[in-house]
């Protein structure tokens, strides 16, 4: 039987993966809003807005779940991360606030082009900056440069994240999210031309993901040596690499042959495996090298109650989530939206 704290950490990882797969794609939508061009730019933007409007707030809650699990089950890890990464986390919060509000304001403000463009710009820039900063914080956590002595951070407020490796991870996260969004968007429409637009974007983003993955891996040699050692040497690592590579190629192949449902499944699996790979490589550290899952764990009673709450919560959450997606992501309803766009904005 796995220790309780490892199970809780596993659930935290799963929540982070859900955040990347769902909310990540919403951020990616913001990226493609900025890069909407050509004769169908307006339709592209509308499709993005329709795809994320009903779901982004729910998707966003995965991040809150990650944070809540972190500070309930591993309070010292939360305190350390919040201290050492105060600046990037604050920037990320500003990004989260501006992304969400600009998107909502755009929906309810004047339909005048100039007003809409202004909110679009703010929405898309915030959608780009937030994933980068999120990646920077995760990169800093993986880098092994956050040091703690007697519960106090000794590595300062800049050094751990203001480095090449965390920034590379930041851009890698952005590319992944943009890739996911483009892949998902091919399924949000029956319009062949729009589908092609997002297929092309997905292929380009996929290529960028590949290049950045290589850069991150190379930089990890000095930027995050322990995690890289974990990724390169462990027994499970090879299997994980092969699986990730299979799904990455699968996503490409499926996009190429226009099997978009398969592309979606492969892309989601690819992103999940990347995050899982990072977590396994870093195990048993929450914040490498001074805070492990075990040393940071809350007392047993807290973990037990938290697991109970997570169990009950999951029973409520997953059926609700399924219902949300069934209501808004069914094919026939998608047709209904396209034919009658005014109906969408409640």
């Amino acid at each position, binding site marked *: 039987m796995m220790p309780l704290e490892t199970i809780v950490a596993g659930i935290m990882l799963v929540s982070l993966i859900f955040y990347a797969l769902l909310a990540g794609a919403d951020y990616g939508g913001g990226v493609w809003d900025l890069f909407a061009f050509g004769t169908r730019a307006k339709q592209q933007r509308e499709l993005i807005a329709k795809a994320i409007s009903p779901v982004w707030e729910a998707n966003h809650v995965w991040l809150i779940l990650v944070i809540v699990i972190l500070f309930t089950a591993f309070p010292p890890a939360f305190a350390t991360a919040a201290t050492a990464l105060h600046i990037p986390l604050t920037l990320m919060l500003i990004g989260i606030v501006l992304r969400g509000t600009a998107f909502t304001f755009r929906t309810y403000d004047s339909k005048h082009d100039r007003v809409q463009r202004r909110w679009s710009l703010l929405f898309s820039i915030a959608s780009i900056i937030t994933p980068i900063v999120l990646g920077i914080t995760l990169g800093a956590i993986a880098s092994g440069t956050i040091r703690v002595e007697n519960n106090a951070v000794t590595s300062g407020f800049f050094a751990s994240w203001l480095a090449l490796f965390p920034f590379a991870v930041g851009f890698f996260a952005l590319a992944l999210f943009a890739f996911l969004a483009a892949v998902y968007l091919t399924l949000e429409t029956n319009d062949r031309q729009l589908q092609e637009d997002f297929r092309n974007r997905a292929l380009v983003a996929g290529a960028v993901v590949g290049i950045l993955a290589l850069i991150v891996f190379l930089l990890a040699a000095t930027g995050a040596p322990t995690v890289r050692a974990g990724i390169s040497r462990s027994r499970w690592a090879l299997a994980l690499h092969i699986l990730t590579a299979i799904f990455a190629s699968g996503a490409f192949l499926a996009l190429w042959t226009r099997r978009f449902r398969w592309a979606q499944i492969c892309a989601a699996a690819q992103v999940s495996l990347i995050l899982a790979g990072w977590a396994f490589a870093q195990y048993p550290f929450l914040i490498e090298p001074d805070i492990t899952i075990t040393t940071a764990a809350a007392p047993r009673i807290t973990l037990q109650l938290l697991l109970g709450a997570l169990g009950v919560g999951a029973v409520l959450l997953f059926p609700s989530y399924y219902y949300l997606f069934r209501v*808004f992501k069914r094919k026939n309803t998608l047709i209904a939206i396209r034919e009658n766009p005014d109906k969408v904005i409640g």
Partner: protein
Amino acid sequence: MDDLLAARSQMAMSLAFHIIFAAIGIAMPLLMVIAEWRYLRTKDEIYLTLAKRWAKGTSILFAVGAVSGTVLSFELGLLFPKFMGYAGAIIGMPFSLEGFAFFTEAIFLGIYLYGWDRISPRKHLFAGVIVALSGAASGVFVVIANAWMNTPAGFRIVNGQLTEIDPVAAMMNPNAFSQTLHMILAAYAATGFAVAGIHAFMLIRDPTNRFHRIALAIALSVGGVTAILQPLSGDILAKAVARNQPIKLAAFEGQFETETGAGVRIGGIPDEEKRETNYAITIPYGLSILAYGDPHSTVKGLNDFPQNEHPPVAIVHLAFQMMIGCGMLMLGIAAWSAWRFWRNRKNPAGKWIDSNRFLRALVCAAPLGFIAIETGWVVTEVGRQPWIIFGVMRTSEAVTPMPGLIVPFVTFTLLYIFLAIITGWLLLRQVAASPKEFEPAEANDAA
């Protein structure tokens, strides 16, 4: 501004901002559900139009509430990491439960706002009911955590470390029930009065508009009933504070001297140098009765507590007075409305609304509930100072070592001012676009 003050100011500002949207997020779904339920019962399309109009406003406000709430969950650690490192294991539970309540709320709000044409009317109403319930649950869980900071329970301290942690006992802390009851009622009362005030304003210009008449009736019913119940919950809470945090009660009242048969002050300005509260009207024995239910009970004054445990008395006392004042005015207006309704019970429906004086009073009362929420929040948070965990950990011990905290404070303040202006402007647009003359076709266009 030193870093501790900057951190406290940023937290205070973030909470003061978020609490408005949180309260609306709790109460608006109830108003929408009532309107939609009336529509299903009567098939009168005007109720459907109303539910949809309210839903639009709620959608804007909920988005701002969701992101500003996210900011808070991080700020707990960004500004007071030692508090979270110390207490996370014990008060993380209500936050975890709040996480799921928020999840449910966000999922079903998405369904509610965008699903008018996708699901059956009954399912749609049911989605609204879930939003209303989970919104209230979110509020309850968050306030439970705050109540724990006031009346910590469920642990022992050995050598400065928390041991024998019992998160269930922590959630059942002595103030949990009275504080959550008070806050939830406040959310309904404040939102009900604010919405009623807006529709009253429109009715003064356009007295026969049925849309606004119906909206006013629903909003004022919710706001009025809760405003009448609120003083009772306030009394329960005051007695809990008297029992569990006597120094905080003394600050509420500006009570410096320990006194048997203490009077309750109305108004008054505490002078912390001279340790006296001047210019107050005092009702004899009032405080002893209110706090302990016995006119001859003894109320311990601030002088009998160590000076370094005093909260800022003047701020707390003035905020407390303002909160009570707003609450009493709302109680009066609720009673007046009930009386008008009763007196006109034999007249045609809605006759009780027809009075310009009454409508003007409702317009003036619109902000009272939110003033009461803000000042009440000052009472509970500033009244807890200098502690972050009452009697256990000082706020100054919990603050982050991060220097230059004035920068994020100013940044978030500017950001929130910007959001407040835009939100206000967009809501004005919504109100201005409300139906001038109700036509059934509107119901379809409004979709």
